[in-house]
């Protein structure tokens, strides 16, 4: 549906000539068209109509089972069961990151309670910003008891909808919302980012690290700040290149940023950019494929992105800053189901709450040594010895104090 794709190349001449022909065509039309010819046209239309009816007729019988499925919704309501649904941001439910993690949490919760997609749990995918309000409203009207908004981009719209539908419970992940029937779920991403920064600083040979952010925003700045602070705590001379793709869904842009960073000597890139990060992984794998000896790494975000980094026997995923959106989603859903919905509150998930962790799946790359280092720093964060910065100003002060 995007017309931008046709903008490339020299196709305009083609299009213009088509338009020229259309105009000529219109002139040709001035020739007579007799009534007889029109009967033929109507016959054609009729045939088309019948075709459509035939398609529909056949499908109807076939789909009685389907209808049973959709009828399941009502059955759930009657049984007084609890249902929950979520609205994705524009990254989509298969972003291999944040939205996917939330959906995994919801599916896991559904399995525990015997629910499946379209039957007690569901998601609505948003293709652009304008879809948030219709999607949220759609789920409200489908009578879901708890509706999650995934991502800070939904903040304003979820706030409006929460004020309008006081009988439904809402939860917003990654930003705050202020309503008695809504809960805000926040993560201490800066803590996890600090720890992967430590890991990156121990892994790098060139002393150059890269950070690829999604949209330049207070949320992603938390990732950036933690990462810088962690790396510089290990070695203050490390250089860190910061780039923002200005999108959470632009893998092509992620790839080109990664290409530029690896070319300029960066050997570890931490991405906090949702679907854009898939491009970073692709670029790292491309380089690795052409030159298996080159040591380059990607640090994943939100989920353990170990799978994304697999290339042959090797894996370019050093580690991942795991944000357990799935745990948070499951927890909040359980609270709500048991009638203990913490409406109006802000829940923060950090290291202490097991809401943040560092993946150690790639044991070849994450050596014992690095893991030990990470654990030492983790201890320091847990006992309050280090206060990880969350904004650029705090980071500057933090680095200066080193």
């Amino acid at each position, binding site marked *: *549906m995007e017309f931008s794709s046709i903008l490339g190349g020299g196709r305009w001449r083609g299009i213009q000539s088509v338009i020229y022909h259309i105009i000529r065509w219109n002139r040709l039309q*001035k020739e007579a068209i007799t009534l007889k010819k029109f009967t033929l046209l109507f016959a054609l239309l009729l045939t088309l109509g019948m075709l459509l009816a035939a398609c*529909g007729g056949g499908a109807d019988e076939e789909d009685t089972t389907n209808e049973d499925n959709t009828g399941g919704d009502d059955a759930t309501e009657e049984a007084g069961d609890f249902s929950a649904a979520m609205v994705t941001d524009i990254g989509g439910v298969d972003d291999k990151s944040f939205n996917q993690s939330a959906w995994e949490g919801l599916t896991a919760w559904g399995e525990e309670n015997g629910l499946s997609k379209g039957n007690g749990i569901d998601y609505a995918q948003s293709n652009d910003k304008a879809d948030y309000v*219709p*999607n949220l*409203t759609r789920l409200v009207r489908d009578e879901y008891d708890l509706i999650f908004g995934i991502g800070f981009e939904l903040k304003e719209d979820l706030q409006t909808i929460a004020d309008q539908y006081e009988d439904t419970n809402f939860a917003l992940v990654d930003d705050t919302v202020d309503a008695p029937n809504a809960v805000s779920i926040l993560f201490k991403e800066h803590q996890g980012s600090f720890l992967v920064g430590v890991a990156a600083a121990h892994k790098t040979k060139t002393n150059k690290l890269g950070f690829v952010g999604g949209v*330049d925003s207070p949320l992603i700045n938390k990732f950036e700040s933690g990462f810088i602070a962690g790396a510089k705590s290990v070695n203050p001379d490390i250089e860190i290149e910061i780039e923002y793709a*200005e*999108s959470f869904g632009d893998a092509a842009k992620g790839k080109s940023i990664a290409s530029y960073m690896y070319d300029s000597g960066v050997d570890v890139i931490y991405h906090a950019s949702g679907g854009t990060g898939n491009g970073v992984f692709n670029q790292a794998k491309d380089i690795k494929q052409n030159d298996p000896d080159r040591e380059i790494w990607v640090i994943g975000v939100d989920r353990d992105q170990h799978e994304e980094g697999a290339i042959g026997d090797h894996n370019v995923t050093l580690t991942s800053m795991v944000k357990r959106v799935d745990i948070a989603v499951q927890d909040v859903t359980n609270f709500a189901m048991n009638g203990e919905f913490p409406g109006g509150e802000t829940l923060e998930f950090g290291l202490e709450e097991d809401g943040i962790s560092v993946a150690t799946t790639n044991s070849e790359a994450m050596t014992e040594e690095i893991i030990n280092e990470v654990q030492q720093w983790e201890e320091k964060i847990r006992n309050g010895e280090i206060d990880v910065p969350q904004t650029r100003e705090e980071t500057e002060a933090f680095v200066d104090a080193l």
Partner: protein
Amino acid sequence: MTENNKLFGILVPIVSVILGLIVGAIIMLFSGHNPIIAYTSLWNGAFGDAFTIGETVRRITPLILTGLAVAFAFKSGLFNIGAEGQVIVGWLAAVWVGLTIDAPMIIHLPLAVIMGAIAGAIWGFIPGLLKAKIGVHEVIVTIMLNYIALFSTNAVIRGVLTDQSTTTERISPTASLASEWLQSLTFFSRMHYGILIALFAAVVMWFLIERTTIGYELKAVGFNQHASKYAGMNVSKNIILSMVIAGGFAGLAGAMEGLGTYGTISVMSGFTNLGFDGIAVALLGANNPLGVIFAAVLFGVLKEGAGEMPTGAGVPTELVDIIIALIIFFVASSYLIRWLLLRFKKEGDK
């Protein structure tokens, strides 16, 4: 004879839509989904109740204006790919006025709307000027200006309108097109008074093109620049004017989004696609104001209704995109359908 011709003109888009629906239905059948349920939920998603109708109208509003923006330039033989950028600057300007100026509604609202249109007009003026004076092709300039608009707007939002935040404050109520009355009528949809402005703009375009000397000259330049020049018309002036007015329409579309739908402007991670869809709307509407309105309605309905298909009928989002694209494809390739219909007709003659 002309009556038949008109009938033919109406028939072609209808056949196209039906063809698109049928091919979409076949694809759904093959992938194991029920097309009847799917199309029912498409319909419900667009017209199911007051809320969805309100949202559909909201979605149609800017599409009418961007459709007009492309169609108007096309009347003078210009291809305005820059509607996208003109929308973005119009949105920014309207919200900027809405945020910073303090005035009673009777001044504030028109001022914000007009500033949106002016910003779009300036964005149309640049390619118009370059085309008229040094012959730079407007397609290239407008495409590049789209990116300039997108990224400068993001920078302004971050650096000027807010303090490194991604969304501005809400505009003051005196500049808002949103109406509580319309919202209560449509169950909290975001429908706003902008639809009236959009319809009025279509009338303005019709009047300009069909009833004024300016419109006559613009059309003449579109048909044949050299003949127009020979006839004593100022070709450069007409090219610039055409782009300026087109840009103004697109700027209005941006103002509708800023003052009506959102009441804010946010950092955009990509184009709004309003301008690009406007190209399709204009082509589909045969660059005719009334046609543009109908085409915008079709686009808005499809886009709004499509959201209901995954939750209502279990059709995966990707498949929905394919089906909607197919319908638009068939509609946009109405040339092919005309050709086929005529072939059919000729054979019938034998």
